[in-house]
């Protein structure tokens, strides 16, 4: 192993870097030159946003599945006027029937997410190269990469763990070059995927708000997809119990909306306090994700002595700024009434104000509005975005400082805390989310002046630190190509999507066939072979489908019963009791393989209902489920003196029957059941 620095030197270097960051917050070279686009002063009043135009196409896939694709009209793109662009596709495995209970959502493709070109890959492995290097000219005609497998999120967690282990144990000790290169590559690839997950989420949210009840997705399906996409950004997010997906979606959405409103208000107040103009930019669903700040050209000179507080705005003082005094960049003339509302030029009493754009901010960033474009200083947002990356990359990838290094850890912790608490735009979480959303906003929103949009797009691309990113026009082109490739893949007879589907179904059978330790071994084998080996069950396809059908339906009813059990103090008040009975009936008929959690849920439902038929079904289902938890629940009901005598007697009867059938019963419960038998015998 070679080290460029000794440990002591490395620490010193890190300390110097750290001190530099502390001393030079936000220092950035200024770029005075402005683009020379001189648009005609716009006299347009705020226009109503055009109808957003999302539509969904269903494409059947051989073998019993369908591809659901959301198309959007990217009216905001300058060069793309070829109609709707495919944005997101989701594969729904229906097992070839119409029953929603056995459907399973599988892959999500964001069509702008593509396999990078060789040049992009090479660049992404170069440490400290925080820049785009151009577009991927041509997407592969192979099946495009998906951004998530909704039915296999666990697998993704283990892969991530495996790669982290590999990085730590193999690459890091090997050499600094390998370490820094692999680290940079993985980081860029990860960010590239994250950016597209964020956009997929935004597209689905927009589609959801537009389609409403007319969506082909059930409301819980869309929430589940979005929750899974949200969780994919957390290391262990793929391991979460499905029961919590609704809560994840609600919590995360609520938190984002809170942040958005908070930043909207913070930026408006700061603009007001500093004598600037605030303009919120809306997504097609009416949500404001970004905002522009403007200055009146007349104020630049007239208020040159004005004090300017740059806190949270993170731009230099515009009053008296020479760059603005001789500004040749984009301007707009807007009209305001006496109440300072924006109006059309022909409104009586309208006052004309020539405005110069100063900066654009993303509102979905934690704690502070995050600057994405500084019209006077192109590098300003980029250097702020880089601050965290540089600090981390130097510390981790170059000098091997970890959290176990106490002085570094403490210094970093204090610095992080102060920066976060004060809302300093240095060393903040990445702008990735705001950046990705803005790309989408610019593509979708045709209400922005084209010149302004073009300038924003151009400047935005400079913020990106990721060589894997493509620009907006390239992405529209790639999306079409990739979608065509996906359709081609879906139609390909042998090695196409239906074959993959069949493989996935065979893998899905594994937990039904193998014990837990066997499953772990098979998973280890898959991970250790870098995914080359994936265990699949054999057997006739018809039989496989029948088994999957039963298993998925059981899983569906299990999930429903657990939800009922968790949420309700009295089942029939909160739920349609017919639905509960239907799920119990299914378990009663096909639930021998149901797990302990199902049994626990049924036990809770029994305790929280007064509906006799439901109670009877609960006991019968507990008898049917062949595991110790189910029998233990029955034993508890039998022993509960407060319970109705009928139910206790029925429980006893079921327990005796289960013993006779040699069902799985714990030793302790078996002893109790034996006592019942004796008592009954007496």
């Amino acid at each position, binding site marked *: 192993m070679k080290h460029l620095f000794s440990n002591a030197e490395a620490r010193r270097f890190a300390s110097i870097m750290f001190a530099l960051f502390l001393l030079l917050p936000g220092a950035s070279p200024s770029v005075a030159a402005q683009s020379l686009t001189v648009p005609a002063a716009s006299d347009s009043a705020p226009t109503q946003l055009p109808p957003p135009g999302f539509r969904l196409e269903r494409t059947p896939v051989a073998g019993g599945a369908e591809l659901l694709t959301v198309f959007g009209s990217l009216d905001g793109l300058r060069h793309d006027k070829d109609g709707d662009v495919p944005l997101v596709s989701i594969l729904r495995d229906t097992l070839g029937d119409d029953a929603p209970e056995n459907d399973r959502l599988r892959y999500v493709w964001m069509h702008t997410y593509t396999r990078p070109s060789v040049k992009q890959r090479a660049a992404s492995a170069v440490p400290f190269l925080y820049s785009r290097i151009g577009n991927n000219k041509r997407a592969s005609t192979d099946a495009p990469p998906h951004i998530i497998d909704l039915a296999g999120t666990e697998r993704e967690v283990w892969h991530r763990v495996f790669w982290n282990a590999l990085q730590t144990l193999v690459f890091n000790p090997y050499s600094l070059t390998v370490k820094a290169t692999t680290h940079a590559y993985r980081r860029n690839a990860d960010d590239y995927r994250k950016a597209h997950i964020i956009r997929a989420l935004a597209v689905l949210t927009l589609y959801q708000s537009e389609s409403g009840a007319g969506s082909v997705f059930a409301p819980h399906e869309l929430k589940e997809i979005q929750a899974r996409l949200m969780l994919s950004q957390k290391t262990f997010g793929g391991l979460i119990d499905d029961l919590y997906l609704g809560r994840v979606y609600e919590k995360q959405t609520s938190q984002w909306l809170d942040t958005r409103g908070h930043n909207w208000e913070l930026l408006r107040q700061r603009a007001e306090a500093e004598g600037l103009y605030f303009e919120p930019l809306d997504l097609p669903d009416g949500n404001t994700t970004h905002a522009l700040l403007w200055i009146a050209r007349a104020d630049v000179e007239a208020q040159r002595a004005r004090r300017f507080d740059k806190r949270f705005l993170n731009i230099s003082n515009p009053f008296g700024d020479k760059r603005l005094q001789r500004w040749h960049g984009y301007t707009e003339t807007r009209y305001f009434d006496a109440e300072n509302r924006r109006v059309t030029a022909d409104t009586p009493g309208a006052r004309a104000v020539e405005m110069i754009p100063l900066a654009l901010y993303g509102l979905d960033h934690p704690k502070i509005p995050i600057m994405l474009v500084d019209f006077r200083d192109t590098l300003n947002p980029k250097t702020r975005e880089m601050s965290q990356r540089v600090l981390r990359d130097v510390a981790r990838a170059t000098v091997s400082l970890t959290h176990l290094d106490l002085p570094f850890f403490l210094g970093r912790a204090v610095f992080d805390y102060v920066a976060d608490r004060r809302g300093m735009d240095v060393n903040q979480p990445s702008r990735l989310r705001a950046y990705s959303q803005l790309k989408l906003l610019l593509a979708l929103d045709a209400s922005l002046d084209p010149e302004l949009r073009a300038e924003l797009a151009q400047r935005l691309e400079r913020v990106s630190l990721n060589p894997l990113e493509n620009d907006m026009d390239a992405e529209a082109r790639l999306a079409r190509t990739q979608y065509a490739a996906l359709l081609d893949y879906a139609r390909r007879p042998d090695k196409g999507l239906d074959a993959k589907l069949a493989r996935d179904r065979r893998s899905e059978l594994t937990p039904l066939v193998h014990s837990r330790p066997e499953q772990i071994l098979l998973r280890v084998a898959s991970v250790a072979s870098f995914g080359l080996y994936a265990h699949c069950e054999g057997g006739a396809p018809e039989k496989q489908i029948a088994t999957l059908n039963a298993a998925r339906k059981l899983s569906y009813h299990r999930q429903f019963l657990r939800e009922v059990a968790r949420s309700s103090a*009295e089942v029939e008040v909160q739920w349609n009791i017919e639905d509960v009975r239907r799920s119990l009936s299914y378990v009663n008929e096909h639930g021998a393989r149901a797990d302990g959690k199902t049994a626990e849920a049924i036990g809770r439902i029994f305790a929280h209902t007064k509906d006799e038929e439901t109670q009877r079904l609960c006991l019968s289902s507990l008898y049917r489920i062949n595991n110790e938890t189910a029998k233990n629940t029955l034993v508890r009901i039998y022993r509960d003196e407060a319970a109705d005598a009928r139910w206790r007697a029925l429980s006893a009867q079921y327990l005796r029957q289960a013993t006779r059938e040699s069902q799985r019963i714990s030793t302790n419960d078996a002893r109790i059941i034996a006592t019942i038998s004796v008592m009954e015998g007496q």
Partner: protein
Amino acid sequence: MLVACVCLLLAAGTSFAQARRLVLVKVDGLSQDMVERFVRERDPRTGKSLLPWFEHIFYERGTRLENFYVRGMSLSAPSWALLDTGQHAQVKGNVEFDRLTLHSYDYLNFIPFWLGTAGKVRVDMPGPELMDELGIPLLVDSYPYDERHISFQLYQRGTRWTTLERGLKNRFLTRTPRELFDEWLVEFEGRNIVMEQLEREVLEKLKDPRIRYLDFYTTEFDHSTHHNRDRETHLVSLQELDGIIGRIWTTIQQTPQAAETALVVVSDHGTNTDERIYSQGFNLVKLLASRAGGGHHVITKRRLMSDYALKSIYPLVPLITTTTEDSYYLKGQSTAYPTALVDFDGNERASIHLRNSDLNALHILLAELQSKKLSPATTRAATEAFFALIEEHRADWQKLHTNLQEELGALRRLVERERALAAAQPKKWTQADSDAGRDQEARRINARADSWATDERKYTEYAATLSNLLSLRRETFDAARLRIPDIIAKNAMGEQNTIRELQNYTIGLQPGGLTLAPDGSLDREKSFARVNYFALLCETAVRNNVQPGVDSHPVDFVAVRVPAEALFDAHGKEFRADEAVWLYHGEDNQALILARHERGGGLQLRYVPVARLQQRADGTIQYERIPLRAGLPLKIYEDARLSLPSNERREDWLDRWHGDLDWLRALHLTIYSNGLIGLQEQLGRHLTPAMEADVPGLSTDEQLIRRFRHRQRVLVETDLLILANNHWNFDVRGFNPGGNHGSFFRISTHSTLMLAGGERTRIPRALVIREPYDSLSFVPTILALTNQLARPAQEFTPARFDALPARPYPGRIINELFDPNAKPAQASTDTPGANGRTKAEVSP
């Protein structure tokens, strides 16, 4: 005769009630409109209501009030005070400042309370402490200590440390590692630990047959509406509450006391939230600190932008001083001489104290005289002006000084007696004593003595400087030998400003400095820079007006208390009023709210449109009476939902005196709802027996202490009450884009009251009461429901207040609840999904 009959009928009606046990769910900010909306919406997955437990319990099996309002301001501390006591408003804000001592009554801050109870030097939250001093019992006081279970809340007596301890334990021990892992992924929230434990404790205590009073207080919904404006967040928060109510109800049903247990949900206010609009903040502190706003050093009890301040991690939140660089004459003296106190909580309103304008003038003159830069003529004129100002106030200040000295003497003697009483208390307590709350009672004595001793010290300091000021003599006056802090009290606002002073408030010197009149005297007009705060506040506009439906002016109107005798002098009998409130919405758009207190306790109110109101130097008030028209404060005349008796013209009805109940019935559906009554409630003075000094039989010390209590309440009265325009707020602690409250808009004052109970409680089923009621009705109704209200008068005095006369409750009992003719409707008849109408309704 008629009165007797009514009393008998009332007694007969209420005698049906047999709720022996009461479970109160107190929900901060629960908007009745939002509950109604979500109850009526169906969940497509289940076909049930989105709030199934609300529907099941209160819509099908209980009674709900469709028009229940906050009586005063839609703000937590004042509003819960009304709900918890059933008495008129004594608490006028979440934070109150004493003008003379800057003592702050922070009714929301739990941290000092917890530290105080941990150190065994305090027992109660500041709210109950104040109510004890004013001799006002809380509803909870009607239950013996060992028969009640109280959750954490603003008017909390005592605390339970076991809640926190058991909450942590339960959080981790009742879940499997897998569940903890999943919750960690969703997001682990510390606050939930306490809330879950509080709920668990209520459910446990329900099983204890000795407990007859239980409450559960939650602020979760209020928080969610402050932060988020979106429907989903509000719904999720309400569904969590719905689940809690469901669990409480189910547990009640499993107890032997179910038939005689009443479950009541009550809220302190609504919330002004709109899915399409962000609530916009306006920084009043910054305005006051600006040169145009007076260049004040401003004190708040909330840290500005606390989420972005390192200092805000300090939990005790002392007085926060915002120092201004724009001060006219107090640069660098912000810690000694703040000149404005701002309470902006609730956020749709703010209350402001400004230092007495003439104290400012004295301070400026003294500083100028000490500067030695003045010419002899100007020095002479400034000195004359200085003493002229003192002479203008001498009588009042002398009276204040004398009275304070008398009262502080009595207070000192009272402290000594309390100390002796505290010393006589046992040092150790048995478990039986603790169970009966006797240890807490003993600690209360100590806490009271400490608090009074602090009061005595602070007021004494103020009295000393006042004495120094009054003892100055023109003949021996030498400004250079004086220390300003000896003459002008530090950290004090002095006496309240008059309307004239607020219209001509002295903020500093004019650029030309002190200027002499032709006669050689000081020309006060030309010397002092002044601000008219009414005009300043109402004319302030913002440049960024980006949301449709939001005005560019953050301030709707300013309300101040007006000396009613000055109005009487000006306009004779017609305007004879005991109290008056002036509403300023511009020079041409103003109104007076006049109030007359009737002998029987009734309240008559009148709304008088006026313009250009001014107070003369002699104290009299002049104004122009203007006809009723649109655009006046409270926008009553133009409101389509104004509901007048038939055949009455608006102009005629609105131009007369009416009882508060008539006003409530006429106004409650309008945009400002019962704001007219609320403003009188908020700015009026409401004496309690503990403040009435002129009662025969009292010792001198008792009289003085009562006068002192009254003085303390008067000293927290602010100069200006500022009401925000729709979708504006004055929060500067952070941002509340989701929504706010505090105003008199109906959306903010419209609260929730729902009741349901077992058969023996006789609470009607599926009953909707349309008659409007306000928060003063809550306590007497609950006491009637639990058979604790003495008849025929609505009087009740818990044992610990037996030294004071019985307190009649000013609010109406909600008689529909006790109406034997109110038919219990079939559950299905009130199922809203069917046709949205209910069968059992009681019309006004």
